[in-house]
Each structure stands twice: as C-alpha cells, then as structure tokens.
C-alpha cells in the first residue's frame, strides 16, 4: 500500500486532480479527508488548506484482487491466495484448494489459461508488461522437479552414447527449465528445433558441431 498526501483548495478538487494525475477510477483506490479546508471570509481569514490522504494499492494487491475475482467466478474454492514477487515475476499461489485437479486441468491447460488471462488483465490494468505466474498447491515446482529428473536421465544417456536425444514438445517455460539445467553441464548442450507450439529441445553431446536446424546454445 502506497500512501500519498496532498494539499489544495478543497478535498473534492484535490481528489479530482489526483485521479487525473494517476489515471484512476474511484474504485481503484481509497482516500481519507484529513482536513476539509476553508477559504475563510472573502478568502482573508482562517484560510486553511484542505488535506487528503490517498491509499494506492500496490501491484501485488491488485493482482490478488483480480485473481480472487476470477477464481470466485470459476467457482473454485480455496483457503488463501498469496502473491509474491521474485525473479522479475509475480507468483499467484492458490493454497488449500479442494479441487486442484480441476484448476490444473488436462496437461495444465486450465491452469495455463487462468495464468494467461491473469497476465493480460494485469498488464492492462498496470499499463506495463509484467509476468504473472499461477500455481496451485505447489504444482509447478513438483512438475519442475519431475522434468529436471527426467532431463537428467536423458542427458546421462546422451553422454554415454554420444547421440543426441530430442524431447517431446514443451511449453516455453518448460523449455527454459531444460536449457538452464543443461547449461550447468559442460558435457552436453541444447538446441531448439521446430516452430510455434511444436518446438522441441534437443540434448546433444557438447563436443559435436554442425547441426542443420535450429539455434544452438553452448557453454
């Protein structure tokens, strides 16, 4: 919560100017009139300025409000929604839900859709590009660990046989996890093949050059 105090001729005038300055609507913020202000008689005596305190919700609070609005309308039950900020992204955690399976959906389709919509809503409201992630009962982390352990096995195989292995098509976020993991190992490297929805990561021995397709990431 950000608190801003302003002075001026009258409380309504200050509020009006404030809304214009920050491009706000009445339901976007809270305010408190500290001093009504008076212009005295003919503006000569008792000339007191008006004072208004404004309370602006911060981005995390805004995202929380949007997430709650969306989940309530999806008839999803939960105990708590937590919004945190790290790694340049906001993470919305839906905690204590009774139907995580519903929220996640097949191949995380619903969860990803909720995440996408929440991203669009937030970007529109904040007028800048922000990254919003949505997680349910730690699902994303579990998936990340599962993916890493799978990639670990595959990279061992690649090292042993000296032959590259192509993974199944993955979402950008998951491909990123693979790239970052493989980057730590100097004996293997990654490249990406395919287009759009069907982009795949190839894990190949680091010593080998000359690949026909895609971009390479080497250490």
């Amino acid at each position, binding site marked *: 919560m950000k608190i801003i105090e302003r002075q001026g001729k009258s409380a309504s005038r200050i509020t009006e100017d404030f809304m214009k300055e920050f491009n706000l609507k009445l339901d976007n913020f809270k305010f408190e009139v500290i001093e009504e202000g008076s212009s005295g008689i003919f503006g000569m005596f008792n000339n007191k300025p008006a004072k208004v305190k404004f309370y602006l919700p911060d981005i995390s609070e805004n995202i929380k409000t*949007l997430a709650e*609005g*969306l989940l309530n*309308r*999806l*008839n999803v039950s939960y105990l708590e929604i937590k919004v945190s900020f790290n790694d340049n992204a906001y993470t919305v955690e839906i905690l204590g839900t009774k139907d995580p399976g*519903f929220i996640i*959906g097949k191949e995380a*389709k*619903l969860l*990803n*859709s*909720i995440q*996408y*919509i929440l991203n*669009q*809503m937030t970007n*529109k*409201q904040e007028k800048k590009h922000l990254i919003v992630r949505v997680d349910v009962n730690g699902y994303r982390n579990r998936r990340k660990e599962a993916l890493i352990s799978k990639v670990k096995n595959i990279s061992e195989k690649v090292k042993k046989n000296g032959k590259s292995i192509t993974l199944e098509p993955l979402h950008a976020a998951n491909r990123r996890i693979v790239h970052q993991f493989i980057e730590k190992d100097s004996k293997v490297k990654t490249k990406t093949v395919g287009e759009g929805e069907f982009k795949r990561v190839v894990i190949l021995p680091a010593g080998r050059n000359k690949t026909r397709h895609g971009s390479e990431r080497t250490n």
Partner: protein
Amino acid sequence: MKELIEFIVKALVDDPSAIEITEVAGDKITIYELRAAKSDIGKVIGKRGRTASAIRTLINAVSARQGKRAVLEIIE
C-alpha cells in the same frame, strides 16, 4: 457464466461499457454472444486468438463440471 465472461472481457478492453453479452440457451448447448467496441475486438481475440482460446478453455471447464456445454461467439 455470463458474469465470468463479463469480468474477464471488461478487464481487457478500453471501453468496458460497450461490452454486451447475450445468452442464447439451447437444449444442450448455451451460446454466449459477445459484442465489443470495434477497436476492442482484437483485444478480446488476442494474438493468434490466444485470449479467445484461453477464455473458451475457462468456459468449457466450468460448464463441463456442471454437465453442460457452452460456446463463446465473438460477434464482429
């Protein structure tokens, strides 16, 4: 359901007052017709239809749980 669509769409467009959703209830399928300001249609559809497809995923999930089917039509 109408409220869900309205909540999402109004948060994405420049002119929320122009959003109009008509519910056409059928035997098995309910159709939701969505109208928006001309300049906002693109925002509702999104790049490569991504926004529209995400909204449809939400609608399908909610209605499937109620044993119903729902379709979103964006009217241009």
